[in-house]
């Protein structure tokens, strides 16, 4: 790793935003405040009361980022809303300057914080390609040379001499992405640009970006909430949280870290507290889920997950059933298991033991969403309680498994079928 070429180096980067209204908004207001300060009087523009404490308060969108991005790698940036992803990209693409810290960038940056920046509805597609290319830093000669490729890639050849205000949003995006993708830049920055466009084009774009990283040795920084595209494109990830890099590593580990920060493996899972969710009548409250017959919820093929569910019921309920939705680490739904509606709950505390067989489940960490519901005489379901992220377990490969490879979910999915028969 040591001798890899550095593409981007961030050291101690901080970005501060002021909270609330910036400035007085008017020159008069600022002059008033300034004059008051000069005379040592109270600022007449300060709001009375609690607002006083807010003065000088600031919000650190980025709070000390140290990061090295190497040449030719595709780095995914994940994090919840407000974690600082977009701010970081904005700093890198020089839209705004950092409050503190240094950034070194080796190479030209093509940033796509938004697709179609500088597109003007009145101008034709071709005129806009020139405009957009020039804004992104290409010279006219470079654009001329790439024009044919751009039009070809964008799939909008018939409309290239039509004003873009007549384009559908999909066409707009296709053209804009094509321009950005054909830039001769060493670094590409993309903020969720693939959210638009049809599936086929999305795939084409991802392939293009992957090629850019793998074959052309360009560096790609990609921000998305779509873990699948991250997994397809990136080979390394960082997880941002509250303006700091909280995790740095492989894609799957990062995604799991980002997704799982709330749920850890534990034998006793406390589910007290309010359960939020639509369409449940809350007649039942699931209190705890405890793994039985195991010291730690790690299973192999052939093992059966046995859990004891303690719940409180507010009334007597017949035909009670439970179901478990199995989710992978990144919250993808893997499957569902339901019990028969044969349970009976009495008003007060109840307990029930459920079993779940894992025979065909691929190795990995899984999170269960547990739902208690009942079936009435018309066959209608009524949900009583739903617990997201109720409990988690891990399935590991056993010695008996035919497949001993480390399981890659983006390639093989979440099902491990029994051994392939040979006749």
């Amino acid at each position, binding site marked *: 790793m040591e001798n890899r*070429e*550095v593409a981007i180096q961030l050291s101690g980067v901080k970005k501060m*935003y*002021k909270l609330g209204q*910036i*400035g007085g*908004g*008017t*020159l*008069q207001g*600022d002059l008033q405040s300034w004059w008051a300060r000069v005379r040592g009087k109270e600022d007449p523009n300060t709001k009375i009361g609690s607002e006083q404490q807010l003065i000088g308060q600031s919000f650190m969108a980025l709070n000390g980022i140290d990061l090295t991005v190497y040449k030719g790698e595709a780095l995914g940036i994940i994090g919840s809303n407000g974690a600082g992803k977009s701010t970081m990209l*904005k*700093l890198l*693409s*020089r*839209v*705004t*300057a*950092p*409050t*503190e*810290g*240094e*950034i*070194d*960038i*080796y*190479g*030209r*940056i093509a*940033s796509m*914080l*938004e697709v179609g*920046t*500088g597109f*003007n509805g*009145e*101008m034709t597609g071709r*005129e806009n390609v*020139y*405009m957009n290319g*020039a*804004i*992104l*830093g*290409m*010279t*006219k000669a470079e654009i001329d040379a790439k024009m044919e490729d751009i039009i070809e890639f964008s799939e909008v050849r018939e409309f290239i001499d039509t*004003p873009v205000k007549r384009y559908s949003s999909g066409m707009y995006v296709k053209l804009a992405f094509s321009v950005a993708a054909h830039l001769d830049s*060493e670094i590409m920055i993309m903020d969720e640009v693939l959210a638009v466009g049809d599936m086929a084009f999305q795939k084409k774009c991802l392939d293009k970006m992957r090629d850019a990283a793998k074959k052309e040795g360009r560096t790609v920084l990609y921000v998305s909430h779509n873990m699948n595209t991250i997994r397809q494109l990136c080979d390394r990830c960082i997880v941002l949280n509250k303006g700091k890099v909280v995790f740095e590593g492989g894609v799957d580990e990062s995604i799991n870290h980002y997704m799982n920060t709330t749920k850890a493996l534990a034998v006793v899972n406390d589910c007290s507290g309010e359960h939020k969710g639509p369409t449940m009548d809350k007649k039942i409250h699931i209190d705890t889920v405890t793994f039985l017959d195991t010291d730690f919820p790690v299973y192999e093929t052939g093992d059966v997950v046995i859990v004891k569910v303690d719940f409180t019921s507010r009334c007597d309920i017949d035909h009670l059933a439970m179901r478990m939705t199995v989710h992978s680490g990144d919250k993808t739904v893997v499957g569902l298991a339901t019990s028969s509606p044969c349970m009976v709950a009495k008003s007060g505390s109840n307990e029930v033991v459920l079993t779940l067989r894992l025979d065909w489940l691929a190795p990995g960490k899984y999170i269960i969403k547990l739902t208690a519901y009942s079936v009435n005489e018309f066959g209608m379901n009524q949900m009583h309680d739903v617990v997201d992220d109720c409990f988690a377990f891990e399935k590991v490969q056993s010695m008996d498994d035919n497949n001993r490879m480390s399981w890659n979910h983006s390639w093989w999915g979440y099902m491990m079928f029994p051994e392939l028969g040979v006749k």
Partner: protein
Amino acid sequence: MQEATKPIYYTHISSKYHMFDLNLKEVWRYRDLIMLFTKRTFALTYKQTVLGPAWIFINPLISSFIYAFVFGGIAGMGTDGVPQILFYLCSNAIWIFFSGCVTKNASTFTANANVFGKVYFPRLTIPVSNVLASVVQFGVQMILVLLFLTYYVINGQVHPHWEVWPLIPVVLVHLGLLGLGFGIIISSLTTKYRDLAILVTFGVQLWMYATPIVYPLSQLGDGLMKNILLLNPVTAPVEVFRYAVLGQGEIMPAYLVLSGVITLVAVIGGVMIFNKVEKTFMDTV
């Protein structure tokens, strides 16, 4: 990493920067973009209009007729013996050039906030292209002036000082820089104080009346008014321009130097403020 492996393109972003770090070289690298912006200004103004570029001629013609009617006709102001319509066309051309530089640039940051917020390019390209667009517009208006001028010169009613004509480009550069300087100072301040955006249209109109545009300088006599007007940095260059084209007015070297100094201060100060503001204006706009 070794020094030798550094690519040609290297950018260092830091929270600290030099006040004189103006990055003019980078602006030059983006010259194609400047040309495109300039073209766009024209292309967009006349898209989906019936008369199209003819409006470039019609606009100044109409306003010159109105000036001739209001100031020449109703107010009865003299034009130093120059045919009224030619006098107003000529004054109008140079004033529109200057005021265009100021007003277009005054909204640089606010009008382009959506583009500036998404992608980096040297922000100074926009003001420069605005000035270039004004130059082109001035050129087109000069065609109109020349048509009328030819007619009146043949009739012997006007006697231009042809020997001063080579100075006209210098006057343009001078006024262009002055307009650019004021424009970008205003645009930098409007990121924080929106009041200025409202003030600027109004202010530029007032400025026109404080400049000998709709009347010749000689109308003021030699009183205090004239001295005040001469402090206006636009007055002296405008007089040079009309001296060349119409043979009216005078060249005042002392006031030209004063105007030149004001221009230099405005441009250098403007570019410095502009560079400071462009770094973080996205956070306040």
